[in-house]
Structure formats: structure tokens, C-alpha cells
């Protein structure tokens, strides 16, 4: 007897209720697929959107000098505020809990290499700009460094798409391109990255050069914008307030005048996404769970039928000395086995789907759903709970049968 008999009894039940058992297992399978796929899609989408977010930079604030909107110390409103590299130096000095980089840009300079001519956006900035904006050099290259700045070197770092346009599949690092007829050495190419938002075109199409070189070349003094990033994301509001204070003091405007310097705090989006995806995931999990619960009701139902059919057998077992708890365990185990079979089938379908999904090429839009530990843990836990509940009631009914009554049934 023992386990052998347990499985044989199960097979017996399955054989007697073929269609019903199959439909029941199918219900659990479908429920499992729903839960696991929904959660997997939720995770994939979240990962995709977060990756896109990272493409712009994590918790960075982008600041644009603008015009004052409040009068201050005798100065009228509507005064233009212009920020220079010295202002950025002052910010670095006075606000050590964040890092800063100014950016200048130009959209009318032409790159020329052999017969290819392109007029991309040229961004001039400092080495930490790359770290803040998640611009990562592909193998074999580097970003603009401090030495480039000191010596006003004519070096350029290319966005991956721009590199492709200029060089095709050829190696670009070490090559020279002409920028408004001035030769620039390519020192690096950007690693392909996902980026869903930008404020002057995507990084993949831009050229990056040292700001010192840019100033020398184009006699430009004022920054178009600057970005900063608090070392600790939670300090961002505090840092932002200090930035206003420092610049207001230097340029004589009201520190409360938010329009003098326009700011885009991308960590705001981060907060939004945290809440949005928390809710989204819970919502998907709940919808999937309901499907699984319906499957569980099916299992419970078929187990009631099984108990009904095996009443006499339960009577015999009780008569020869089976304790009620033993009977209960047997039916509970049978329910859990049915649930597990459905669950495993469902997981297999999910894994199969997840294996095929990347071939559809939708990653850029909805991300790639992944069977992460969270997905597997959520589904397994739900299956376990539903199996236990589904089995508990029929098993309890079986164990509470009066042996006299059970034996008398023909």
C-alpha cells in the first residue's frame, strides 16, 4: 500500500471522472497561466520602462536658465538669467551632496567623413555628464575625460546611431571626423541604450565633445542647461532648494522664483512609477488570482464528487482502523496533487510562451515578460493556498463520515 496505493487510487479517480478531472486540471492550468503571465508581463513592462527611464539618467534634475517672474531688490521681472561654467563651479563648491554638469549645444555644425555629411546635435559637457546620463562607452572606447578638458583636445564621443551613420559597420574609435572643417578624433562610441524621454533628441544621435573645446571653438560663454544629481535620491528636493539659493544670490533673483530657472526633476517620475507599478502589479495579480480561484472551486467540486463516490471505501478504511485524520490527509494530498499537476502544466505553458515571446520583437514596446523568482513564488504560493482550501472542505467531509452510515451505502 502506502504511496503506491495512493497514486493508484488517484488514477482510479481520474479514470472514473476523466472529462471532469481533465477540465478541472485545465482550470488550474489556465489560472496558473493567467497569474504567471500577467505578473510576468507586469514585471517585463516595468523593467522596460525603468530601463527607458535610466536611459535619461537616474533621479537627475535638468535645469534651464530662463527669465525672472518676480521682482527682486529693485530689479524688475522678466530679466534674463544666464548661467556660466563659473556658476556650475560655485554649485559644486557649495552643494557637496550632489554632482553637477553644465551642457552647451549646437545644432548647426556639420560632421563630415569622406562623402557623408550629417548635422547632428553637438553636446559639450564634462566627464561626469556621462555617468549621470547613463552614457556608457562601448568596448574599446571611452568618454571625454578631464585631460581632454584641460588641454582642450579636439576629441568626440559618438552616439551609436550617429556612429552607424558616419562609419557604418567600420570601427570608429581612432578615426577622424571633420566638425565644421576642424578634425576631431573619435575616442568612443556609446553602448546602445534604451531611452524613452529626452530634452534635445536621443543620445544615440548626438556627438559629445569637451565643453572647454567647445567654448574655444565657438566662443560660447553661456550654458544652455545644466544637470545635477543628488548622491542620495531622497535629498533631491533639498539639493534643488539649495541650487535656487546659490544661483539667486549670484544672479540677484528671488530664490522662490521657480521660473528664473526651469527644472525637470526626473525623480518625480520615479516616484510616480513606483506607485503606478505597485498598483499595476497588484491589479494584475488579483485578476490572475480570481481565475485561479475559479479553478480551485472546480477542484473542490470534483473532490466532493470523489468523496461521494468513495464513501463506502472510506467506511471500510475507518472500520479497519484508519483515523479520521488519515482520511482527511489522503483527500487533501489528492487535491494538492491535482492542483500541482495543473500548476506544473500552467508553468510549462507560461515558460513556453515566455520562450517564444522574444521572437515576436515587441520588446521595445512592452518589454520582455520574465519568469522571475517573484512570478514563480507568487504563482506557487497561490496554488498552494488554493489547493489547500479546495481540498480542505471535501477532505473534512470525508473524515467526518460516520462509519456506520458510510458502510451501509450500497
Amino acid at each position, binding site marked *: *500500500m502506502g504511496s503506491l*496505493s495512493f497514486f*493508484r487510487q488517484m488514477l*482510479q479517480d481520474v479514470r472514473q471522472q476523466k472529462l471532469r478531472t481533465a477540465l478541472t486540471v485545465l482550470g488550474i492550468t489556465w489560472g496558473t497561466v493567467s497569474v504567471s503571465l500577467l505578473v510576468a508581463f507586469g514585471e517585463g513592462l516595468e523593467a522596460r520602462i525603468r530601463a527607458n527611464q535610466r536611459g535619461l539618467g537616474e533621479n537627475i534634475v535638468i535645469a534651464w536658465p530662463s527669465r525672472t517672474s518676480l521682482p527682486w531688490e529693485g530689479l524688475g521681472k522678466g530679466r534674463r538669467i544666464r548661467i556660466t561654467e563659473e556658476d556650475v563651479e560655485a554649485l559644486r563648491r557649495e552643494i557637496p551632496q550632489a554632482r553637477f554638469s553644465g551642457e552647451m549645444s549646437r545644432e548647426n555644425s556639420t560632421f563630415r567623413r569622406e562623402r557623408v555629411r550629417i548635422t547632428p546635435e553637438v553636446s559639450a559637457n564634462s566627464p561626469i555628464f556621462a555617468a549621470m546620463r547613463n552614457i556608457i562607452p562601448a568596448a574599446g572606447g571611452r568618454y571625454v575625460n578631464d585631460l581632454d578638458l584641460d588641454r582642450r583636445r579636439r576629441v568626440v564621443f559618438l552616439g551609436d546611431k550617429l556612429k552607424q551613420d558616419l562609419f557604418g559597420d567600420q570601427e570608429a574609435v581612432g578615426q577622424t571626423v571633420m566638425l565644421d572643417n576642424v578634425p576631431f578624433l573619435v575616442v568612443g562610441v556609446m553602448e546602445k541604450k534604451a531611452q524613452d524621454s529626452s530634452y534635445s533628441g536621443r543620445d544615440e544621435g548626438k556627438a559629445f565633445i569637451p565643453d572647454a573645446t567647445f567654448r574655444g571653438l565657438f566662443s560660447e560663454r553661456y550654458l544652455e542647461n545644466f544637470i545635477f544629481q543628488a548622491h542620495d535620491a531622497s535629498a533631491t528636493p533639498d539639493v534643488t532648494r539649495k541650487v535656487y539659493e546659490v544661483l539667486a544670490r549670484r544672479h540677484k533673483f528671488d530664490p522662490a522664483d521657480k521660473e528664473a530657472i526651469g527644472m525637470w526633476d526626473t525623480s518625480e517620475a520615479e516616484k510616480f512609477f513606483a506607485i503606478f507599478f505597485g498598483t499595476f502589479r497588484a491589479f494584475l495579480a488579483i485578476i490572475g488570482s480570481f481565475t485561479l480561484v475559479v479553478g480551485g472551486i472546480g477542484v473542490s467540486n470534483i473532490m466532493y464528487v470523489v468523496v461521494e463516490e468513495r464513501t463506502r471505501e472510506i467506511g471500510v478504511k475507518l472500520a*479497519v482502523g484508519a483515523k479520521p*485524520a488519515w482520511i482527511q490527509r489522503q483527500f487533501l494530498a489528492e487535491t494538492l496533487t491535482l492542483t500541482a499537476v495543473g500548476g506544473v502544466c500552467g508553468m510549462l505553458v507560461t515558460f513556453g510562451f515566455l520562450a517564444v515571446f522574444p521572437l515576436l520583437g515587441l520588446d521595445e514596446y512592452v518589454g520582455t515578460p520574465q519568469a522571475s523568482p517573484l512570478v514563480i513564488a507568487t504563482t506557487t504560493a497561490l496554488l498552494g493556498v488554493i489547493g489547500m482550501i479546495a481540498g480542505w472542505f471535501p477532505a473534512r467531509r470525508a473524515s467526518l463520515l460516520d462509519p456506520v452510515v458510510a458502510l451501509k451505502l450500497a
Partner: protein
Amino acid sequence: MDKLIELRDVRKVYSTGRLEVQALRGLDLEVGRNEYVAIVGPSGSGKSTLMNILGCLDTPSSGSYTLSGEAVAGLDRNRLAEIRNRHIGFVFQSFNLLPYATALENVELPLLFAGVSAKERRERAAAMLDRVELGDRMEHKPTELSGGQMQRVAIARALVNRPTILLADEPTGNLDSASGKAIVSLFEELHAAGQTIVLITHDSGIAKLASRVVRVQDGQIVEDVRAAA
């Protein structure tokens, strides 16, 4: 003589809605070791209720039941299951074998609940099937056996855990007369070997073979005759 069974003023009342039925009305019974008792009576006499109480499938509404020195009345379901496993071997009219299990597995069943190891279960069940002359049918399923053979498997199952009492309820009721006779003679052999047997029947021919006949009517014992030994 050891008293294995001692019933004192046992009453059993079934209430169905507003109607109360007294199945047993203050019944006293003692059964000693190695007795072979036949309980007879017309249907509705209360003999089935008596059998259920003796077999610890049911408990009396009032009165006391001492089985092998242990007070049984009022025990919970788990304790009753243990007592059935240890002291009672049931033989039913309709065999009550598990249809999907082999003869051997059916006989092993009580040992499974007694917590006996798989190896010992197998050995003891096989020995018991040999004892009822079914050594060559161990791997057969009930559907592949005749009625007489099925009842012998059931008897082997009843005896395998060495019960204090073999409790048989109309064991020949579903058998042809030849098979029935074989079962009855098996009971006599078992009795001769020292087994205490309580047999419930309405067949006076079978009852006559017991060493003692107890007649039940209207929930009371109306006659208790011991055959001359």
C-alpha cells in the same frame, strides 16, 4: 473465563426529528475468551445496532462497554479507530474489499493503519492469505475472484492484525451454499485455534454451529443458550 466483552445496561436511542427510536433497551452481555457467539434475531430487533456498538463503529447512548478491560463508551473518533484497528476484525456480508487493490494489498490495509513496516505488512498479509488458502491469488483483484474467495480475503484482512474479536455480519449472506459452508468451516477452524468470534446471522443453521446463541428481540436479549461443550 476472561471477559473480553462486557456490556452493562446499554441503550441506544436514534432520534430522527421528533421521533425517537430505542434500538437497544438496557442490554447486558458478556463474552469470554475463545467463545463463538452467534447473535440472532429478526430484522429491526437491534442486532445490527448491537454489532455496530460491539465493533466500536458506534457508541451507546447510555450504559457501559468494556472491551478487553478498556472502557469504550464515550471515546472520541480517533481512539475508537485505534481500538477497531487493534481489537476488532470485521467481516461484512458484502465483503467490502477495495476494488482497485490486490488481495494482498487489501489484507495489508489494517497493518498500514497500525503503523507496521512495509516489509512486515507484506509478510504477514501473505501468511494470512496462505492461512485462508489463497496463497496463489495474492496479486488478483477482487473482480478476478469468486464470492467465496473474496470473503476469504476479507477474513484474512480481519485476522491479519490478530484482533481480540472477529466480528462477522451475515458473512455467508451473499454466497452460494457451497462457498458459505466453506466459510463456516473456516470459522470453526479459527475457533478451534482459539479465536473469539461474534457472528451475526439470521440463518439458524449457521447459528447452531456456534458454541453459544444469543437471541435479540426489541432491543433486548430474550434468550442466551450455550451449547453443551
